[in-house]
């Protein structure tokens, strides 16, 4: 069975500090990977997706960047956090080649102060 793990579970960070959030999927080769952001009380906004190692497409950047260093890993980062970055970050995967269903990780809750 596939498992998706996000780290950390929660972060409290200062404005202007760097950030790195990670996502690892096990039990699935060559998944399509996605980053979503959910502001408190807000909708799910897709940020990035990746269909293969080293390739990342931006949907909405929000002064964030993403990388896929390994087949099973997706990283979201920024060098300088803004207050507006607070929220819930979700990593998700679906089957390569057109699978329909998104499977979400447990998420990382980020508070920027």
């Amino acid at each position: 069975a596939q498992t998706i793990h996000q780290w950390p579970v929660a972060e409290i960070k200062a404005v202007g500090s760097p950030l790195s959030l990670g996502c690892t999927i096990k039990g699935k080769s060559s998944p399509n990977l996605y980053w979503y952001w959910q502001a408190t009380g807000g909708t799910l906004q897709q940020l990035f997706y990746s269909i293969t190692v080293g390739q990342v497409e931006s949907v909405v950047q929000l002064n964030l960047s993403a990388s896929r260093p390994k087949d099973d890993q997706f990283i979201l980062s920024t060098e300088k956090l803004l207050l507006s970055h607070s929220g819930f970050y979700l990593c998700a995967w679906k089957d390569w080649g057109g699978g329909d269903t998104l499977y979400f990780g447990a998420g990382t809750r980020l508070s920027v102060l």
Partner: protein
Amino acid sequence: GDSVTQTEGLVTLTEGLPVMLNCTYQTIYSNPFLFWYVQHLNESPRLLLKSFTDNKRTEHQGFHATLHKSSSSFHLQKSSAQLSDSALYYCALSDRGGSNYNVLYFGSGTKLTVEP
């Protein structure tokens, strides 16, 4: 551009009454793929229903929805609400099989609260 509209932000129902959550969409996709995701408190979203077939009812866990391309709608319904149905419901749109199938547009969500 592509978008999903959920008109009700909050819906409060008494247990046993029917549920109807509205979802309409705008798209240039010739093959839109519509989804309903449900998010319970402190959990991640999970798929509830999906459809790309026009005028065909799809059902899961007591919920059902029918994609109507003529009216660009994919409303979620259930005949009798249960307390455990209380959650956030998101309607979402993607392009089935097209160049944009890796982008999923979510509506603003409807918070359903079912009371005893």
